[in-house]
């Protein structure tokens, strides 16, 4: 088998995937916004609980009463995260259907399965980052409002910044992980598309 000369190789870098992903998000900003909102809501709920717990721990450490978050709330967070994942999967599936012809065209001009996979995963990762950051900010504010009346609103200043930062990184990574995880099946489905059938497909 003759190897493909280097100048004929299809080059599709991570930056290309990001550029295309952002372009697609901009074109469908309304639906993407709804998607990000649902991720942000679930993440903010999760963040609000863990940060409230962190505030309570800090409060207890500086001599206040020992408080804790109700267990059932964590179960609700699990539910919120699951329905959010389902939502992302759903939205990405829809996104795949809408872009059948685009995927077909890309494949015709040499895009490999992994390129299509990367394109969708990058798009969902962008949504994950946006939802994670937004969710973290909302979650911290919610935690401050819910715990502040008991612990005092300056509790945020007494909480070690390192811990807050660690939670920020953690929740953002969780958000990316969930978004990417939820998009795996739609992305895989898109990558496996037969270009001929994809081009013939009509909504």
């Amino acid at each position, binding site marked *: 088998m003759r190897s493909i000369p280097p100048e004929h190789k299809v080059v599709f870098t991570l930056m290309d995937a990001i550029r295309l992903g952002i372009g697609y998000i901009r074109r469908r900003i309304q639906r993407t916004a709804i998607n990000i909102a649902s991720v942000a809501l679930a993440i903010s709920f999760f963040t609000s609980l863990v940060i409230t717990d962190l505030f309570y721990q800090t409060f207890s450490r500086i001599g206040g009463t020992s408080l804790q978050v109700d267990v059932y709330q964590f179960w*609700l967070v699990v539910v919120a995260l699951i329905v959010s994942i389902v939502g992302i999967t759903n939205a990405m599936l829809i996104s795949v259907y809408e872009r059948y012809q685009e995927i077909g065209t890309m494949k015709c001009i040499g895009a490999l399965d992994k390129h299509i996979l990367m394109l969708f995963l990058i798009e969902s990762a962008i949504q994950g980052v946006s939802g994670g950051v937004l969710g973290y900010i909302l979650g911290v504010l919610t935690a401050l409002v819910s715990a502040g009346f008991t612990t005092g609103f300056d509790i945020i200043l007494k909480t070690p910044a390192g811990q807050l930062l660690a939670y920020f990184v953690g929740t953002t990574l969780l958000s990316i992980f969930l978004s990417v995880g939820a998009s795996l099946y739609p992305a895989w489905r898109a990558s496996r598309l037969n270009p001929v059938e994809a081009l013939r497909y009509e909504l």
Partner: protein
Amino acid sequence: MKRYRALYLSLFLLMLLASSMPFSNALNYVSVTGEVMDFDTGEPIEGALVEVYSQRYWRRYSSRWEPFQTIKTDSEGVFSLKIESGENYRIIVSYFDGDQNYVPYGKYVRSDFDESLIVSLMKAASIKIRGRAYFIETSSIPSNTYKVLNATSETILKSGDLSLTYGSQTESFTELVNIQGDTVLVPSDSRILIEVISNVKIGEKTSQRTMILDDFSGGLEPGQYVDVDLRSKVLPESLLSVRNDSENLRGVINEKEEEGFYLAVERHRLSELERLIQEAETLHDIESYESSFTKLREAYILYKDLNGIVHGIVGDAARSTYILVVFITVSSFILGSIMHDSNLLKIMYSLLFDFILLSLLRFLHPGIPLIGTLDFILVSLSSFLFLSTLSLIIPRLMSAGGGGEVSIINMIIPILSIAKRSLRRRWIRFGLTIFSVIMLVGSFISLTSFSTGYGLNVKKASSQGTDNFGVLIRTPNPPPEKAAAPFSGGNGAAGSVPLGTELVNWLAEDIQPILLAPKYSTQPQRQYREEYNPVGRLGNTNLFGVLGILPTVESSLTGFDSLVIEGSYLTDEDSNEILIGRELLSTIDAQLGDAINLRCFDTNLKVKIIGVLDDEAFSQLRDLDGDPIIPQKIIEYERIEMDGPDFVTEGLAYCEPHEVVVINHKTAESLSGIWINRISLTLPESINLLEFSQRLAINRGFRVWASTKDGVFLSQLAGYFEGKGLPVIIPWIIVMLNVVITMLNSYYERSREIMIYSSIGMNPRQISTIFLGEAGVVGLVGGSLGYIVGLAAYKFIYLVTPSLQVEQKVSAAWSLAAIGISLTAVLVGGVVALLNSTNITPSLIRRWRANKAERRTDSFVIELPIEVLEEELVEYISFLEEELNKSSKGFNFTTKMIKKREEDGKWIFEFVYSNTGTSISTVYTKNRLIIEKNDGDHYLTRLECVGDENGAQAAGSLIRKIGLGWSLSRSDRSKTSIIQDAGDL
């Protein structure tokens, strides 16, 4: 002479009768002498008190005995009395000395002849009864009677002719010989029992409780003094009773859990109940009876509430079964219909789903065994048969009608068919949406908890601490029907229920506060109608409130004395003195020191004005709870004149200072219609005010305010609501957003399909119903399945989180709520999607392009296919203006700088359109919307649009959509006018 004999004889007899009268008075007295001696030694008792009671003055009215004569025995123990003959008397002999007491003695005497009595008094031992026989079932204070019984025969002992009875019962020795109410004198060296009879008000009824004190059955030494705490005798019985109740309830909960109920919240509250009982037992063991009783009463209140809840859950669960069966059958039919189009297969699939789901329900729902398997099968079969018949008959009943618009009812079947086909085609997406709805409803059912209860409620009435630390007591708020009595024409008193003087006595005796300040005031009444319900008069001036205070104490607690700006303040002792405001003093035209008539309801009193109050300060003076001290009155809010009596709405308001007089407590007690409205207490520092107020609230059922350095706290027994799991709103929103995305895409994908529907005559409402129908199907199926998943979760919660405190939702209301929460999520999502979609009426806007052919000079010109009649013009212009203004708040696009003007018979709107939402590039156009008359009678609409082609296309779409809205609304109006015309005909 003979004829006068009879007359002389009559005169003689008359004179004889008259002359005998003084002698008859002397003859009516008989002598009663007696000797009082010690029963054991026979020695005379000197100084024994002999009291004679007579019924003579009460004969006409009652059999009440009244004290008549009192003497003491001499050194020989002898007494001698002269009493009228022919009467009944009661002689009571008693002897109390600090060291030597005798059992009091009573004898009935009929004074027909002189009588000589030998009274042998038995040496007594004293039993001091401490505490009261409180009962956990009631907050009322019981009154006790103590009977001394023979320990062998258990019959009541008699001392002379009277039973040996003490306590609150009338005619007991406590009343007759004036000894302390809690002291029982019993014969020494006798084997006796004490029977305690407590009269207690439970609810509206007075019931009697009896117990036997058998600590003295071995007999007591003469002069022996025994202290008995009644609470130590009553509490064990109450403890045992509540302990047994609690055990029984535990048994019921265990039994119900075995039947499949998830009673974690109830079990948690049961642990709380057992903890309270345990604490009560511990406190009882260390003889802290008052605290023990408080804990026990709290436990009892909790038990009553919990017992009601547990039994209520069971009843609700049975009832909810019927609703669930119907919902599940409907869901099964929907699923069956999605699976196949053939009627037979549809029903077969439905039956299969119904069987599977109902079997699951049978396994998971604890209410089904309660109604019985046979009933369950019957209900399931009948609901299935009913729905099968309905699904076969309804499509045949629906018709397109004989022409014109097809009604929405007749569109149901086609709409559901279309929705079904769409769901089947997009089954992965709708499957995922249903999955998220199932998760939502399942978590709502299994992870949220909304419960109500009744118990001690403590809340901060004010966060500002006061200098006056103390406690304020009021009765609970009256039930609404009683509070409303004055306003509905009754004669009842308005405001809170008055406190009784017995409460003041109880507080003084049992609590022993440093200061105790009852506040008396008139209750607004309905029986006085003239001048709008005055409660009395001062001279000729109407009064609407009379306030009675304990002057010295009130000045310490509220600083009432500082209100006096002229004259002097009231004293505790002097009656018939009043304080009035400056304005009232001038109204009645009186001076300080003047005597004036005070009328309060039906009592009149001559009172002296001794001081003048500062009106402003008086109206501002407040009690510990923040309520003004000034009494309340009834006022008229609104009067509607009617043919008969006017319809009057009344309410309560605080009196003005010039409508009130202030008197002291003694004067208040001599007036009618004036009651204790609140009691303030100052307590020793050793007493924790908050704990004390909670104790009063629990034990006595009062509303109690405690003023502490941390603020004012109100303690009362009240119902409460506890909600857990409110964050379920977040998954709800996420699911709703999920539905929005699904529905939006469904719309985008099906735009061509929608055009076809439109072209075959479906109107926008019918098309949108397809989408909502799809959403409804998702909601119903998701709701029913979610409810089952939620029920299943209770079975596994134990495995993952043993202590998860959630209330099981097996009632009919929760079944409906589960369906409701899923339906609202999907329908709200569906509606949001439809509102956000660019347009759902493609047939009316058609595909069009603002191409170059329409371009004239530097602008695109878009003619709108709308003709407006002359008479419609004004309405049309305002419609356009309104819609353009509405669009200024658009999500994807916006209209700005809207200007309207009329020029040469033309109407011109100028506005800027920008689209920033969904496109890659932003469009921006300057527009002129011109409404101009054509050659005929009609006005035409034209849009002139400066910008690029995309912008013209977008702005043109907006204006066409507005035009479409006008056409539709015009169609509705014409329908209305047709109906009106028909009505006129």
